[in-house]
């Protein structure tokens, strides 16, 4: 084995357990804190952890994991720009504050996390390792929370992107071919563009 690949494999094996909970923690920050800059920073961190998990998936081709992380950060950049434009148009001072109805959110997040954890224990996804299965279920839970309980276009959009990432992880295990991986990257990029557009278009009107 190529020594670079060997060390990447070793490092990712060490970090992947923490990366799963890193994905969850980043999602929790997005859900519980209402300041858009912190939310997008957490989303950026979430893609970093997802990148680590992708190196487990593409152990022979770490450049694919790097590509997925870079695309994720590009998505974060697009969302940042549109959120910034919206912030400027609203002329409101951005200050740190917790999301409204915090107790409800905390309980909902806890419940969905337990459901995801139990689902990962109980339902074995074909050919998917335990860590990746837990990540997939956690991402699906987070996306359902974002889509189902948020009004903000950016956060609902992050839910959509989380769902696409969960699908990407699950499907890449089944079919590690380049075409599906490439098409899923295009879908994520298009989705992020559409989310940015929708964020700005309400301001433009």
């Amino acid at each position, binding site marked *: 084995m190529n020594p670079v690949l060997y060390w990447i494999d070793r490092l990712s094996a060490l970090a992947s357990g923490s990366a799963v909970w890193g994905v969850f923690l980043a999602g929790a920050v997005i859900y519980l804190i209402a300041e858009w800059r912190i939310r997008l920073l957490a989303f950026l961190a979430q893609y970093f952890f997802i990148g680590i998990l992708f190196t487990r998936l593409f152990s022979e081709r770490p450049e694919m994991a790097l590509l997925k992380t870079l695309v994720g950060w590009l998505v974060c950049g697009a969302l940042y720009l549109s959120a910034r434009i919206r912030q400027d148009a609203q002329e409101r001072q951005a200050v740190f504050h917790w999301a409204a109805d915090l107790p409800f959110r905390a309980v909902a997040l806890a419940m969905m996390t337990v459901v995801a954890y139990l689902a990962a224990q109980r339902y074995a996804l*074909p050919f998917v390792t335990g860590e990746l299965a837990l990540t997939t279920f956690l991402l699906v839970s987070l996306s359902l929370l974002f*889509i189902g309980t948020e009004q903000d*276009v950016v956060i*609902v*959009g992050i*839910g*959509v992107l989380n*769902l*696409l990432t*969960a*699908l990407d992880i*699950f*499907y890449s295990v*089944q*079919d590690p*071919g*380049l*075409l*599906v991986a490439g*098409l*899923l990257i*295009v*879908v994520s990029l*298009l*989705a992020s563009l*559409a*989310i940015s*557009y*929708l*964020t700005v*278009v*309400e301001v*433009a*009107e």
Partner: protein
Amino acid sequence: MILPGPLVIVAVPLAMAVVLQLLRYWTALMAWLGAATLVLIGSLVLLAPLDDAWQVANLTVEFGRPLVILGRRLVLQPFDQLVIAFLFFTTGGLFLVAWRLLPHSNFFPVGLMIVALLAAALLVEQVVYAALLVEMAAILTVFPLHEPSSGAAKREEITSAVGGMRYMVYTTLALPGLMITQLFLDLFAIFPNDQTLLNTAAVLLSISFAILFGAIPFQNWLSRVALDGSPPVVTFIFTVNLGAVWFMLLDYLRTYPWLAEQVPLARLFLWLGLLMMVIGGLLAAAQRQLGRLVGYATLVDNGAMLLALSTQQVEGVALATLLLIARPLSLALMTLGLQGLRRLDGGADTYLTLKGAAWRAPWRTFAFLVGGISLAGFPISLSFVARWGLYQLLAQEEFTWALLSLSGSVGVMWGLVRSLRVLLKRPPPVERPVGARLEEDRIVLVLMLLLILVILLLGFFPQSVSRMVYQMASWYTIF
């Protein structure tokens, strides 16, 4: 140089999309060029013999020859010809409708890209790629759906991006189901004794298509898109995008014929279709916003299509396709009317704001009503012919089902009659002064009259269309 047909079908609209993007300043040129491209390729697809070649200068186009990309094949099959022609002609027609309504719009270039993606989705052999391409097309639709108005059409309107967001969210929710279904079905082909794989695949497939069709309880996106979106683009989503989804469902059933045999899909379609028609009819009857009425009328129509498929007969597939072909005419007319009525009062379409609007925009009111009557499946329209055939097929099995499905159409009609009463009401001048009459664009007026004429003509003489549709349906040997 030999070009495979699928390359021409997909690449030419994409190339033209780039050209149209450069011509955004000239709306008429964009609309006509886009429409001409689509009509030309649509005609070629419809008329091209699949076992022969077309010679153009040094180029030879073989429509039957597959296009291979990284080992995946895109092939034009006989049953795809009419489907792709339908998508191209409908989009071309909608470009002409949008010509006067959406100046400098990105609907024209983006519409070409979407239709190219949908054509690729229908041509590709593996359904997993079809699902991904349909998802991409759905995401792209968001851009023209919520495009800020410009130029002469700029108005102080109440806008919200919720409709586009919901459409994208629901389509994305359907995507995992569609992709995983294929995986499970392929596994079932290897392990035919594992019934769990088949059952899971059937459940995932049903939920995914229910979401994409806006079936109960996922109907929310249909009404919201109709409420928030730009009318011509709403028609595009409800006809072209939903049409592609419909044919993708037929593709799934054709690719995995044992799915329909081993899982009671017909029963599922029957109850889902009935539920959509009955609930859709009730919701349409209770609406107080014209945009939502359009959404629920489409829900009823989608339910009728699923019901037709549940009959497990070639006639059923033909009737569903006939409904789909009739839909762009009805919806285009309805949304032309809606667009004018919305312009009267800053984009609002509630009963409160549209009281007496018929006196200020008589032609738009007439267009909305005729389109609505046609979409509801009442005489005299092509939809009526299809719905009548559907009631007859259902009555042969169970008379109650025919009555229940009829109630959906009655609900939509009830909503239209309520709307008409509001539109015709003259508000007391003290309470609300009557606004100025809508200045009608003559070209839009001609378009509306043309659409009314085509609806009536096809309603009186449906034979030519129904014959063509029956021939196409007979290629889908699902049942």
